[in-house]
């Protein structure tokens, strides 16, 4: 039986993540309240606005619920989702969950006018290591802490990283038709957990 992947559906492009999962025939579920996590085996935090996420998570009790969930179950965060999962955001007042030891800078490439797409290198995708990545007002990983491994690279920057249970990307794999990152998350994190 396939495991079910929840997608945080407070705001943002959560529907695109659900579509990516559907393409891979992975059962999914929209998560808005702590109770919604009860029948999920993993959780994806999508792109959107991290301040909006944190605001709603704090009001609904999801902040504590996701922290607890993350002690046992795998999580994936893209863009704003990565910011929420990180340990420190240098240029913002939000207090992230600290589930992956990353120091990040928000909107690090500038405003929307500097948003871009570019091929990045993911060496663990041995058959085809290039991945077309879309960076929308994207954050940058400034430092990786203990137990955090770099997985994806754009120029000299780490744009995808993991620890034991968390996969995080500064870009949006849900915005392209290449579903290898979702597939990788499911096989390497969700199935093995």
């Amino acid at each position, binding site marked *: 039986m396939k495991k079910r992947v929840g997608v945080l*559906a*407070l*705001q*943002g*492009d*959560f*529907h*695109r993540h659900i579509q990516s999962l559907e393409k891979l025939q992975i059962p999914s579920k929209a998560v*808005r309240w702590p109770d919604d996590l009860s029948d999920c085996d993993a959780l994806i935090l999508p*792109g*959107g*606005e991290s*301040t*909006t996420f944190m*605001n*709603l998570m704090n*009001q609904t009790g999801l902040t504590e619920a996701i922290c607890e969930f993350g002690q046992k179950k795998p999580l994936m965060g893209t*863009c*704003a989702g990565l910011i929420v999962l990180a340990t420190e955001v240098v*240029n*913002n007042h939000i207090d992230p969950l600290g589930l992956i030891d990353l120091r990040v800078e*928000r*909107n690090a490439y*500038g*405003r*929307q*006018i*500097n*948003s*871009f*797409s*570019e091929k990045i290198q993911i060496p663990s995708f041995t058959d085809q290591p290039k991945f077309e990545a*879309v960076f*929308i*007002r994207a954050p940058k990983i400034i430092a990786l802490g203990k137990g955090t491994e770099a997985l994806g690279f754009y120029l000299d920057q780490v744009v995808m990283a993991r620890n034991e249970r968390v996969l995080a990307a500064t870009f*949006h794999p849900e*915005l*392209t038709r290449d579903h290898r990152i979702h597939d990788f998350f499911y096989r390497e994190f969700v199935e093995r957990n």
Partner: protein
Amino acid sequence: MDKGTWTVKSGLAQMLKGGVIMDVTNADQAKIAEDAGAVAVMALERIPADIRAQGGVARMSNPKMIKEIMANVTIPVMAKCRIGHLAEAQILEFLGVDFIDESEVLTPADEKYHVDKWQFKAPFVCGCRELAEALRRIAEGAAMIRTKGEPGTGNIVEAVRHMRTVISEINQIKILGEDELVIKAKEMGVPVDLLVYIHKKGKLPVPNFAAGGIATPADASLMMQLGAESVFVGSGIFKSEDPAERATAIVMATTNYDNPDIVAKASEKLAGAMPGLEISEIPEGSIMQDRGW
């Protein structure tokens, strides 16, 4: 590195889904909006209710004021240019505004042409009252569509009419035969390829947001249930008696639009909403939704 592409422009529109975009006139209001959970702010000197009350020609806001707001929040900042005023649009793009609203709230600068939005790296949002208008704006390069509603009234009826019209017309296109699409496109004055997209997918090729008259959490919930993917709140927040609380409540109601329990709880603590305006009492020349075509 590809910048300003369709993927990148529509990508930001995707990130704003399920959220609330709030009109603000200064840095303090922008901060209140950000703290309340707004996904973006619309920087403008006068909110629609004041433009309506004061009359005269409404233009793009002063760049200094837009820059101050951009410096004070980390969420995306939008700003409005007049319909067809490509020089105002160029200024907004130069300032680094994240989304440009070619808006009927301002006095149109061109009675024939809208801005050729393909020439810009910044994404555009445009208003519509019906499907043909939406598709013409998309053909010109808009990366997001919103209903026009009747701005600055606190009266939801026009936004409802526009959203219902767009959704109903999409449903009609879906059931047409493929051989009927070319003639239908001719009748509507829209490109055939966009109509083929609607026929196949049953939705607009860009996010479809609601704007114009949203004043309460229940208004936001209504628009989301009718098919809006996010809501713009213009005068509704900072013309109310409790902007911070109202902003927070509308954000909560937008996320949980299909849960009356939560929308009720969000509405409970609020004081008075902005005073509303009955559409039939607006002098004909002051109707904003008729600007643009």
